[in-house]
């Protein structure tokens, strides 16, 4: 028997994820909705011997068809894919949350269960909710839930079970509008009545959506009615708008809110008025243009301090463990070629990337805490003031910060941006931010060639890279990626103590994808590199395929003062950027030899080019997964061009100045 499907719907920041985790435990799976990069979370709930597939729909404020998130949520509900719809309603923002509830009920669903979250918090604000009366008024079951403390979960499971098995019946209330609007709804229903649409959809819902001029529904109705009848309907709507002197979608929205307001009087009691809360005072500082920025730097300084303090020792330990494993394994493999492939190719290649896992996990862990506490929205506000000048929204600050750790999760984190154009631009400039692998290259070269002024050298490379990222953001958002600038509005959620379970699950989910990439793309890349550097003869003699490739590129490399060895190193750096140094090591045989072979200016150019050129394979793969091949290829091409231009300029200016 197929599992019954439970869909979780609700506004962002209502505690949906906590409820999802509480219902499904560890039995969950994250992927993408087919065709779009909206996160699809599924998990299994078992109750009374029956298994349910719980699907966490994207958090949305409404079900209009304007963003992909909304469209995904709406299509899922509209197609009747869910046997039970659990609508999570935040008691602290009841009016707005019930707006979504009404949109859901208006679809004609009668399998809705309301999970009422944050009831305790609402009471603290002086909002008392009579749950029984709420249930009677709305005509659907209401279960107060505090998932963090495990309160109400059994009741919620019972309600889901009851609803799925037809033991609960409901008579959901749906909004009534002004007589004039209702007349228009009736009229449209009359037109739609004898079409095949009537079997598939709630006609009232279709009528309301037509009144709101919903693109998706207009197209749908056009298919069944033809343009003549549709034009007639739209003409009617224009007349009503003329009389109200206001757009129909606004009329419907405000009347819907009025309707909700009237309902709420029956089950909500306000015991005290709100004064300035702790949250308000904190916001005064954290969103302030000056203090907020200082706080932001402080917070992220501590974040990186934390991540590197705990992550770097783990990374080194893991790196050591992988090479120890390789050394241990080597004698057991008799065939020399196979041994080379497995030990020097696969274990060394995949291991060097996997060793970054602790850093990636800790970074996600720290960011999930900030997210759960409610700080990220404030950070976005502070950065909005600065980043908008470069064509980026404040929210893309988070993926960019992540990139200092590793570009792969950072590219994936761009998902959180709700605008397609912002998401693309953020993803495309993301690899310009120096990740921790490049830090190892920069710090090696700075230490070896610029003793005494290494910090200055490192900072200048970082600064150039960040500047280039901002410059590219400006250019890309203006000339390359199409679309209009998205409006900025963001909810500032109440500051909350994070749920550790959610934080850990969340960081694990995100960093898991990093491991998956290491297991696929990097595995393949490591094998290719190993082959190129060992055939027809091993690297170091000048005859391997890798070296021949390097020599082919030598004339180009000379433009920026580099030789074929740099070409080989950079080529291998595409697998993982820290390979740039280890390849030099292989070609020259020792560190001293490297130092003797290059001038400081050449080393500086090499460090800069390593930072700016093609992102590592895993990052290219992430960009492809989140957009398509075309954009991934574009990123590769523009970064090669950018790195070349910067490299050529530095080399020529530097040489002219006599360095």
């Amino acid at each position, binding site marked *: 028997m197929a599992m019954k499907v439970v869909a979780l719907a609700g506004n962002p920041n209502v505690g949906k994820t906590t409820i999802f985790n509480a219902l499904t435990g560890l039995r969950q799976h994250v992927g993408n909705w087919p065709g779009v990069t909206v996160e699809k979370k599924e998990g299994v709930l078992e109750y009374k011997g029956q298994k349910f597939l719980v699907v966490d729909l994207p958090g*949305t*404020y*409404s079900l*209009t068809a*304007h*963003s992909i998130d909304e469209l995904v949520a709406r299509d899922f509900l509209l197609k009747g894919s869910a046997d039970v719809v659990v609508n999570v309603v935040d008691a*602290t*923002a009841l*009016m*707005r949350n019930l*707006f*979504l509830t009404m949109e859901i009920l208006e679809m004609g669903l009668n399998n809705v269960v309301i999970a009422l979250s944050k009831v305790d918090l609402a009471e603290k*604000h002086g*909002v008392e909710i009579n749950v029984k009366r709420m249930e009677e008024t709305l005509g659907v079951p209401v279960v107060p839930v505090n998932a963090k403390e495990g309160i109400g979960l059994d009741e919620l499971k019972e309600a889901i079970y009851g609803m799925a098995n037809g033991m609960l019946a409901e008579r959901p209330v749906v909004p009534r509008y002004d007589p004039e609007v209702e007349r228009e709804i009736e009229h449209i229903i009359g037109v739609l009545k004898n079409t095949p649409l009537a079997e598939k959809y709630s006609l009232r819902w279709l009528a309301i959506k037509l009144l*709101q*001029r919903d693109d998706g529904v207009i197209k749908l109705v056009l298919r069944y009615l033809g343009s003549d009848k549709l034009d007639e309907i739209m003409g009617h709507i224009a007349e009503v708008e003329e009389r109200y002197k*206001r*757009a129909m*979608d*606004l009329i419907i*929205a*405000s009347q819907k*809110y*009025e309707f909700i307001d009237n309902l709420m009087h029956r089950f909500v009691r306000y015991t005290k008025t*709100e004064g300035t809360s702790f*949250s*308000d005072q904190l*916001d*005064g500082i954290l*969103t*302030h*243009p000056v203090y907020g920025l200082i706080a932001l730097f402080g917070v992220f300084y501590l974040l990186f301090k934390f991540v590197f303090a705990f992550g770097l020792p783990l990374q080194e330990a893991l790196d050591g463990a992988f090479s120890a494993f390789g050394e241990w394994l080597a004698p057991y493999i008799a065939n020399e070629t196979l041994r080379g492939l497995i030990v020097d190719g696969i274990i060394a290649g995949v291991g060097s990337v996997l060793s970054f896992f602790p850093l990636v996990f800790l970074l996600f862990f720290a960011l999930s805490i900030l997210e759960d506490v409610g700080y990220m*929205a404030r950070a*976005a*506000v502070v950065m*909005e*003031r600065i980043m*908008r000048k470069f064509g980026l929204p*404040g929210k893309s600050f988070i993926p960019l910060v992540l990139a200092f750790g590793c570009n792969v999760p950072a590219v994936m984190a761009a998902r959180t941006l709700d605008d397609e154009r912002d998401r693309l631009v953020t993803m495309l400039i993301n690899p310009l931010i120096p990740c921790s692998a490049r830090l190892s290259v920069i710090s090696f070269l700075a230490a070896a060639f610029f003793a005494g002024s290494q910090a200055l050298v490192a900072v200048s490379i970082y600064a150039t890279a960040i500047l280039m990222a901002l410059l590219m953001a400006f250019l890309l958002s203006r000339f390359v990626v199409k679309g209009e600038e998205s*409006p*900025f*509005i*963001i*909810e*500032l959620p109440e500051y909350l103590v994070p749920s550790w379970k959610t934080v850990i699950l969340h960081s694990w989910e995100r960093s898991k994808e990093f491991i998956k990439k290491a297991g696929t793309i990097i595995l393949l890349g490591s094998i290719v590199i190993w082959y190129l550097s060992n055939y027809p003869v091993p690297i170091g003699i000048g005859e391997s395929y890798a070296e021949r490739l390097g020599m082919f590129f030598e004339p180009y490399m000379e433009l920026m003062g580099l030789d074929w060895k740099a070409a080989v190193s950079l080529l291998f750096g595409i697998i993982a950027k820290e390979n740039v140094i280890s390849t030099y090591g292989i070609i020259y045989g020792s560190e001293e030899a490297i130092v003797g072979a290059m001038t400081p200016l050449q080393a500086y150019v090499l460090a800069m080019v390593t930072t700016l050129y093609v992102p590592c394979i895993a990052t290219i793969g992430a960009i492809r997964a989140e957009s398509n091949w075309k954009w991934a290829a574009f990123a590769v091409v523009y970064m090669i061009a950018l790195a070349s231009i910067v490299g050529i300029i530095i080399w020529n200016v530097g040489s002219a100045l006599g360095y």
Partner: protein
Amino acid sequence: MIVPLNSLRPGERGIVADIRGGPTARQKLVGMGLTPGATIQIIEAHNYGPIIISVGGVRFAIGRRMAAKVLVRKL
């Protein structure tokens, strides 16, 4: 007096009268509770960048250009 939201000072309140701008932006605001009839209070407004508002007990940061499209009846 009907004025754009971004002209209010911190502490001042207004009732949303109309929202200009494209349907995408408009319906986003409406879903968040910024609907005609809703009372908005300005919490913070600095010289540039987003302003912080409170609607229905929830706080939002809204971009200045967006705020200019929300027309309110000043209270």
